């Protein structure tokens, strides 16, 4: 992300204001980026604030604007962005553009691939395909086959934005997230689907941010209201982590030593509680698993047929 303030453009043609290169197709090889070119050039963001134009000027000249890459998976879906063929870029008037950075914090951060990762905004056809860092570890003629699982994605964080991050590889257990942006009010809910049942926690400033309160109406943890950076919930069974991130806020994901599950029983509520209810259920469950009863928590019992949601 590159920020310009109080820039002055004197006799600068609109077509000459910038040029953003496409990723080199030649990067798509085992030694550099793998099956497809690295994607950093497609996710750059130039922001211009309080600019002044004199003499000949672009027809779109305005004090505040942004320039983003010709990223077919992102730029066409931002209403205020117009393509500029000569710049190989889009010119925008959207203050809530930013760059989402995230990386693996696992021990195998340089050895295991998670890409391609698709960043998609719900309600649009957006699909920004991300690759990780290029392999720069050269030992003479050979590459090191070491690539950092670090990703940058252009993002638009207007109120209500919800993005799905679809990992085609297994997501890292521990991850770091940061959203860079100039707007204080920008933010987005991010959703990550995990292939396993292990729950996840969000950590902010070294402290675990508790999940939203249980919602009896939804029969799961309350939905993300975008109230503060770090607001989160883990949707059990579906194994989806949802969290809200705002501009210039750093969050970490770490495994939560818990499995959230849902048990459906052919039983009436009356029969269930007449037979000991949640206490007996926990006793029987823990006895069969060979674990202590304190390790199971029932967060809700509801009819539907009879369902007990446990952690």
């Amino acid at each position, binding site marked *: 992300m590159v920020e310009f*303030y109080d820039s002055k453009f004197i006799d600068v*043609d609109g077509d000459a*204001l910038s040029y953003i290169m496409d990723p080199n197709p030649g990067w798509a090889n085992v030694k550099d980026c793998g099956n497809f070119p690295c994607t*950093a050039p497609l996710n*750059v963001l130039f922001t211009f604030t309080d600019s002044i134009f004199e003499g000949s000027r672009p027809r779109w000249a305005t004090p505040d604007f942004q320039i983003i890459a010709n990223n077919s998976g992102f730029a066409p879906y931002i209403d205020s962005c117009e393509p500029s063929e000569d710049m190989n870029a889009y010119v925008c008037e959207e203050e809530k553009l930013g760059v989402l950075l995230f990386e693996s914090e696992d021990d195998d951060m340089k050895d295991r691939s998670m890409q391609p990762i698709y960043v998609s905004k719900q309600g649009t056809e957006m699909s920004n395909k991300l690759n990780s860092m290029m392999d720069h570890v050269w030992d003479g003629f050979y590459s090191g086959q070491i690539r950092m699982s*670090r990703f940058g994605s252009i993002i638009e964080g207007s109120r209500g934005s919800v993005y799905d991050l679809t990992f085609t590889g297994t997501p890292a257990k521990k991850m770091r997230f940061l959203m860079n942006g100039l707007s204080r009010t920008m933010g987005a809910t991010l959703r990550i689907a995990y292939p396993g049942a292990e729950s996840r926690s969000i950590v902010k400033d070294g402290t675990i941010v508790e999940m939203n309160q249980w919602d009896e109406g939804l029969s799961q943890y309350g939905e993300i209201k975008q109230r503060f950076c770090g607001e989160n919930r883990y949707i059990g069974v579906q194994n989806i982590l949802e969290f809200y991130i705002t501009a210039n806020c750093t969050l970490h994901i770490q495994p939560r030593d818990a499995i959230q599950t849902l048990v459906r029983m052919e039983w009436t509520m009356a029969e269930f509680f007449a037979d000991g209810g949640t206490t007996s259920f926990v006793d029987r469950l823990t006895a069969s698993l060979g674990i202590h009863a304190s390790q199971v928590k029932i967060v809700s019992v509801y009819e539907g047929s009879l369902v007990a949601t446990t952690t």
Partner: protein
Amino acid sequence: MGAWGFFPTSEVRFHHMTMIDNREGFGASLEISGAAAYEGSLIMLMDNKIYGETEVTDCPEDGSYCKVFDKSGFLMSGASEHGKSLMPQMSSALPMYKIKSIGSWGGVQRNYRNEFYNFKKTTA
């Protein structure tokens, strides 16, 4: 190219410089890794004047020479985890502005009060 620096530090500032007729533009790269990279790093270019086309043409009418290149005022700056030595020892180390290392976590480039003069779609 214009002035370019590569520094093992968390912040660099280029200011009150004048660049004329540059092919690759100017800017800076930082070398910063480990815990320091997460504390933030900054490249600041401010109060510079950057000229594109000038009275000196790239192809004078007398035909004495003609060297037409794309011209850039700024080249995008960046921060990386490692760098190359001042004296490249292998062919892949060139050109110097290509650092060839993993990009750092937190590099930010801020530019204040820079002036750009006479950049055209095609060079003269």
